[in-house]
Structure formats: structure tokens, C-alpha cells
């Protein structure tokens, strides 16, 4: 099973990507999509495919990959099945940056203001978490992340509380729910230079995460520098998830779910979870994006963060019950 897992996930992802280019408000035939992709044209189907759906698909895949992979790395590093990227405060840092951009009107001034501010917020919170937790161990890293996350969430709430007008409050709420609507190649160009190196950093931790299954002391005795691995995991998460959140807003639960879906299929080895978790994350976000485009409840389109949380929360409950049963 485990030998076929990665090829299977790649095939599923390719299928989801294929459908994603065809489906939406305007359904296109494979012939139209094919000619739009491979024979440059300027008609409406070509515009829809090249300027709307393709950048959106690339963003969905890279955002899902970031969330799934960093979730797997953090669960392995912290040896805690409940760890997820949001735990380190990077996600809420990005939210705060975006909220500042919307609140003070920068978002209206130029279109990339929101993601740029969000990116800055993510990196700043990641750096603060790292500096504060540098000398301490894993527990202090979690606690620092939770504390930073709480402060930034409180500031986001403050901004909502004092919002200058209902429109700003609405815009902040929409951003917090996560969305891939109206994302363009500009967003791709902004996100990928951070997401790709972030993913590379995270993938390099595999061997060390395996050794960490024996605990930090035995990992050190096997030649692993645990402090370096912590630094790689945190900066990889800040880069990839920071950029992902900056583009799409908060997309919850993917980082928690994706590693757990694949973990039993690779014999629970933390290092071997990484690649399938990355693919599963990409698959989940691509499917969620597809669902938000095609499912319309009561006239309004669903936001992707709402959708992933809707399927994520029952999963989370199941996880808690499952762990309780296993440890009881």
C-alpha cells in the first residue's frame, strides 16, 4: 500500500486539477480548456482558464501543500498529534497584517496591499516566536506560539470592534474566512518565492523527525541537532504557511487533517508522512476550492476556510475520541 500511496495521491491531484479547470460558474468542455492551454487565444474560455482558473488552481495546490506539509513536520517535531501550523502564531500573525491593511485603507490603495501586509505579519510573528523560544525547548515553542496567536487574535477582534465602517468590518470578516476568489498571477508571483523554499526546508527535516520519534535525548545521541531542526521547521512554516495565509486568508484544519489521513498508510513513521501529507493537503484544498465554486448555498458562494472547517471540525472530534480510546 505505502509504495503506491504517493503515485495514487499524485493521480488524484491531477484528476482534481483537471476537473478544477473545467468546473465553475461557466462549465467548459475539455476541448475548450485544451485549446485555451495549448493554443493561445483571447476568447472568453481562454481568459477564464488562463487568467482565472489556472492561477487559482496553482495557488490552491501550493497553499494546500504548505498546510499539509507543515502540519506533518510540526506534528513530528512536537510529537503531538494535535499540532498544526496555526499553533505557532504564524497564521494569526498573517491575519493581523491583512486586517491592518484593510483597516487603515491600504487595501483600497493598491491591490496587493493585503497579501503584502499579511506576509509581513506572518514573518514578524514567526521571528518573535523563534526569538522567544530560542533557548527553551519544545514546550516553550508551543506556549510562545499560543501566546502570540492569542495576542494577534485579540488585536484582530479589536479592529473588528472599532471598524471605521460596516464595509471594512465585512471585508475583514470575509478575509478571515479564507478565499481564493479573484486571485491572479500577481498573487502567484508573490506567494511562490516564499512557498517553494519553505517547502524545501520542511522536506529536509524528514530524517530528523524519524529519530525524534525516540524523544529529543535519543535524537541528539543519534547526531541530530534538535535546535537546528526546530529552526528549520519554524522558518519553513513561516515562509510557506505565512505566504499561503497571506494569499488566501486562514484555511483551517487542513494542516491538522492531511497528516492524519496518510499517517496509518506509511506505518506512522514521521519522516515518511511528509510527502503524502503534502500531496493530501494539496488535494484537500483543491477539492475544497472546487466545492466552493460549484456548491452555492442560498445564493452566496461558500468561503474556502468555512468549507475546510466544516469538514475539519468533525474530523477533529473524531481524532480526539480516537486518541482517547487509544491512550485509555
Amino acid at each position, binding site marked *: 500500500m505505502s509504495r503506491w500511496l504517493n503515485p495514487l495521491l499524485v493521480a488524484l491531484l491531477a484528476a482534481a486539477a483537471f476537473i478544477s479547470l473545467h468546473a465553475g460558474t461557466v462549465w467548459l468542455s475539455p476541448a475548450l480548456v485544451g485549446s485555451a492551454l495549448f493554443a493561445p487565444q483571447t476568447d472568453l474560455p481562454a481568459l477564464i482558464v488562463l487568467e482565472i482558473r489556472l492561477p487559482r488552481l496553482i495557488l490552491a495546490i501550493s497553499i494546500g501543500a504548505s498546510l499539509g506539509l507543515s502540519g506533518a513536520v510540526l506534528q513530528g517535531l512536537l510529537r503531538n498529534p494535535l499540532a498544526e501550523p496555526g499553533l505557532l502564531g504564524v497564521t494569526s500573525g498573517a491575519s493581523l497584517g491583512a486586517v491592518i491593511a484593510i483597516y487603515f485603507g491600504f487595501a483600497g490603495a493598491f491591490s496587493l496591499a493585503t497579501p503584502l501586509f499579511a506576509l509581513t505579519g506572518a514573518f514578524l510573528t514567526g521571528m518573535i516566536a523563534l526569538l522567544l523560544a530560542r533557548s527553551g525547548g519544545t514546550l516553550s515553542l508551543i506556549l510562545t506560539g499560543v501566546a502570540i496567536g492569542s495576542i494577534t487574535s485579540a488585536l484582530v477582534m479589536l479592529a473588528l470592534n472599532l471598524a471605521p465602517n460596516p464595509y471594512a468590518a465585512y471585508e475583514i470578516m470575509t478575509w478571515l474566512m479564507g478565499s481564493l476568489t479573484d486571485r491572479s498571477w500577481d498573487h502567484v508571483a508573490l506567494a511562490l518565492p516564499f512557498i517553494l523554499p519553505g517547502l524545501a526546508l520542511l522536506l529536509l527535516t524528514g530524517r530528523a523527525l524519524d529519530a525524534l520519534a525516540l524523544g529529543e535525548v535519543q535524537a541528539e545521541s543519534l*547526531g541530530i541537532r534538535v535546535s537546528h531542526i526546530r529552526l528549520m521547521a519554524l522558518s519553513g512554516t513561516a515562509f510557506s504557511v505565512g505566504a499561503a495565509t497571506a494569499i488566501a486568508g486562514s484555511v483551517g484544519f487542513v494542516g491538522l487533517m492531511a497528516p492524519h489521513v496518510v499517517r496509518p498508510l506509511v506505518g506512522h513513521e514521521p519522516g515518511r508522512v511528509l510527502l503524502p501529507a503534502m500531496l493530501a493537503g494539496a488535494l484537500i484544498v483543491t477539492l475544497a476550492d472546487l466545492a466552493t465554486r460549484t456548491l452555492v448555498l442560498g445564493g452566496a458562494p461558500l468561503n474556502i476556510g468555512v468549507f475546510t472547517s466544516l469538514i475539519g471540525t468533525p474530523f477533529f472530534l473524531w481524532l480526539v475520541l480516537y486518541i482517547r480510546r487509544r491512550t485509555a
Partner: protein
Amino acid sequence: MSALTLDRVDVARGGRTILDAISLSFAAGRLTAVIGPNGAGKSTMLDVAAGLRTPDSGSVWLGEEDFAAIGRRALARRRAYLPQRAAVEWPISVERVVALGLTPTLPAFGPLPEEMLPAIDDALIACDLVALRDRAATSLSGGELARAMLARAIVGDPELLIVDEPTAGLDPRHALDAMRRLRDRAQSGRTVVVAIHDLDLALNHADDIVAICDGRLIAAGPRDAVVDEAMLGALYDVRVRLSRDAEGFSVRFMGDAA
């Protein structure tokens, strides 16, 4: 094979002296038991001896080489260390847990190289784990887990093996079994160091005894030369009756020192 030598090692933590000018040598091909009361500095000394903690002053030598010059990965290949209550955090199969002992020799990516599989098989056989190789490590009993951890430690055939409390939490049969396997390692020429509270096991299975108390070396040397009632009494601050017959040593503690 090479002896492990500590040369005037000092360790302090938060202004408190943990180890005070410890100088001693652990001989190759011998099983050395480190004994002493709780808080004597046994675990800290093992950490220093394993190269996991750099002493505040003094140096540690493996054969003719200073630890500081050996390098982290090279040291990891030559020395194995098992902490107290070693455990596995995910339900990984026993075989893969044992394979983790080869981490310092693995390439950065990819599956386990074919040529390493025989070493894993040998370690599984040596520790009676063949029937358990596909079991999840989190579902093992205490004795089985101790065997799996020992197999993980010896799979790379390290010349130096350091184990903190190998028999804690084991029943008598499994404790004896663990000591026998450690003896086997020593007999094949490796340097084996264990910290141990069970004096009966220590005295009957170790070649050399190292006694420390309050961070200072009380005694070190071959068991028969070092161990007597006066030394043990002073070490633990209780009256001790030590008897010896054809079966070996037995130790009785008689209550507070008068």
C-alpha cells in the same frame, strides 16, 4: 577498541556543582556499573560520557581522540546512548525502530539502503525480537520495549554503549536478561557503561564499579577491589550487610547508619 576517559570534568548548573573534578577511565571489553544515591550526578556523568553535555571544564577522550575533535555524526556512529525510560512516541514497527539506530549512517533522503538490512536482522536476532518485528513499538510490554531499545542501540555496532538504568521497571527475569545482553556486548570487546540502582545486579554482573556521591568520585576500579561494606555504607548513608557465596553477591540494607 577504545577506552573512554574523563579528565578533570566539572559540571555546574544554576550555580550548583553537579560534577566535581571527575577523572576516571572506562575500560574497553568491560561492563562498568556506575552506582550512587539519587541526585549523585550519575545521569549527568553519563550525559558527559556520551558527549551530549559539554563539561564546563575538563575533557572526555574516546581512545586517543578528544570528543571535541570527533564531530557529532562520527561520534553518533561510534557511541550509542539509551536514556532512562526510553520510549517511542508513534506506533512505528519494531523493525523500523531498530533501523533508527542507523540514523547517523543513513543518506539524507530515500529508503533504507539494502546493505543495511543484514545489520537490522542481526540486531533483531540478538535481542529475540524476530517474532515482534512488525509489531507497533507502542504496544510492547516493558521487557519487550527494553529489548527493542537495546537492539536499536547496538544495531550500528558502536564501540561505546552507555545505558542509564537498563533494568528500571523490569521484573527479575527481564532485568537479568538485560544485564546478560549488556555483558555480551562487553565480552565482544565494546566499552559498556551503565548507571544502575539495583546493587545485586550491579555487583553480580559488572566487571568494574564506579561509585559517585554529591558529584565526587568515591571509588572506581575492579569490583572485588572496590566493593566492601564500609564503602557501600558511606555511599548510601545506611548500614549495609554484604555477603558472598558461590552464587555471587547479595546486599542487605539494615536501616539508618548508626
